[in-house]
């Protein structure tokens, strides 16, 4: 037994090597996308080397062409605007609502009902809301980026309110009572005391909401496709036919769509991983 424990305490090389090899399944598609994006169509021979070898001359031409064809900067702008506004509003509105509902649902039937009503929205698939929402946003004149943001605020509400009310259970009510005795209103107590304490949950909500909205195709596809405006993923779908068989151009465009979120991941890897785990486990 002793011997076994000693062995276990050192590095398990077979597993380490297997895991490193396994990484190839993640890296290969991205590597392939990158080398194809850097090549000229003439370098793409029919064999496997034509697609996967490193390009003979590094050229960013495909990227600038892809930017032009897909109207990259506009799509990027819409993607950033929709994601940022959604995340900021989600943190402000969902945390407030989570606070009001979370603090009162033990005593009041109205808040208990509100909680169950909103959280049960988690079971509603987008497919059933999709067609009526297309009609409704058009009638309201918000079949554009603004309507998309409103939809997101509602789609993420069940999850976010559940996260916030759950987190709030661990924040002692005495903290607020102390502030109230000093004469502060509930409103100002919230922003001065509770909102800052919920910071870890804001990070989780921000990560989950941002990943979801940034990568979503379906909502902008059905709601804002008539406006001529695209988000980054939607632009890939819209211009797919224009890429034709020019895969070099297509891959340059795909990479352009992936780069912003990859950079974001490199910068905030820890927060993103924590956010995803917290969101699922809590």
């Amino acid at each position, binding site marked *: 037994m002793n011997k076994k424990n000693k062995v276990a305490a050192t590095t*398990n090389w077979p597993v380490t090597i297997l895991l490193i090899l396994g990484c190839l399944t993640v890296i290969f598609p991205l590597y392939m996308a990158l080398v194809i994006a850097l090549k000229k169509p003439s370098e793409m021979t029919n064999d496997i080397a034509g697609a996967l070898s490193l390009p003979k001359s590094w050229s960013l031409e495909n990227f600038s062409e892809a930017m032009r064809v897909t109207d990259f900067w506009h799509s990027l702008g819409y993607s950033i605007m929709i994601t940022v506004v959604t995340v900021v509003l989600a943190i402000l509105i969902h945390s407030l609502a989570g606070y009001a509902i979370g603090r009162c649902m033990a005593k009041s039937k109205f808040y208990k009902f509100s909680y169950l009503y*909103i959280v049960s929205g988690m079971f509603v698939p987008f*497919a059933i809301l999709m*067609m009526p929402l297309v009609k409704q946003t058009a009638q309201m004149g918000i079949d554009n980026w603004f309507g998309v943001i409103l*939809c997101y605020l509602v789609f993420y509400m069940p999850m976010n309110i559940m996260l916030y009310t759950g987190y709030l259970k661990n924040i002692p009510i005495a903290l607020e009572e102390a502030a109230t005795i000093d004469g502060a209103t509930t409103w100002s107590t919230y922003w001065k005391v509770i909102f800052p304490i919920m910071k870890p949950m804001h990070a989780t909500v921000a990560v989950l909401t941002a990943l979801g909205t940034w990568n979503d195709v379906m909502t902008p596809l059905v709601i804002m496709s008539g406006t001529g405006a695209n988000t980054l*993923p939607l632009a890939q779908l819209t211009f797919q036919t224009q890429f034709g068989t020019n895969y070099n151009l297509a891959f340059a465009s*795909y990479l352009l769509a992936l780069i912003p979120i990859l950079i974001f991941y490199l910068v905030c890897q820890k927060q993103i*991983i924590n956010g995803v785990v917290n969101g699922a486990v809590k």
Partner: protein
Amino acid sequence: MKKLSRNQTFMLITIPVLVLFFVFNTLPLIKGFMYSFTNFKGFGSYDMVGIRNYTDLFTDARVGKSYLFTFKFAVLATIVTNVIGLLLALGLNGKIRAKSALRGIYFVPRILGGLVVGYIFGYIFTYILPALGLGSSMLSSTKTAWIAIVIVAAWQAIAQTTLIYISGLQTVPADVYEAGAIDGATGWIQFKELTFPLIIPFFSINLVLSMKDFLMVFDQIMALTKGGPAQSTESISYLIYQNGITGGQFGFQSANAVIFFIVIVAISVFQLNFTSKKEEQL
């Protein structure tokens, strides 16, 4: 201005949030339900047709096929994702080198958009794998196209599943293994008798989350097959989008969406009951 009481403040927060939620979730849900009793095409006038859409649904071969595909896909993808995710988690939680770098790489697929990932894999299935001598494209045969979608969806979902399993494994205290080792529990027996029972809550989270996501699959199908070949990979969400919004079956697909909604609720309730019973047994 008169100071608002705590209750008034909470009401002023909660009521607008409830209204917002009602307008963009409950209202479209009700409207979808109402459209399901009409022959609305998405434009022009329409009549009430009673429950004809529902009776037609059960005899419509295309709808039947889409349910069959969606369930087949979701079950296989859930199994693949959880088996590989658990294996990866055991490896990544073991005594290995470069732990955080490996974890960081394996998480990358989670942050990428499903549509663009689908396009990249589409190229791998269409050109790279056949060039390696693995027959013709998986996407062109009705027998293999759905497997290709399982592969892509699992490739992305494994990232989050693994991470949740890792956080589960970290809750298992080291002395459990030490005590087990005294009784001779190592390797497979250790996993079966000690590790797995202790991470069952994480197992159920993963089952519920991945199953629900897979049942709503859309992006990968849009990118890889558009429902083909021969409508063999039309998921329920894709069919509702395709025929409901662009195919003039607004009313009929609304009925389909209502049934889909009921199915999702039934499965979620079943899974939650089932897993909470399992957890009680421990």
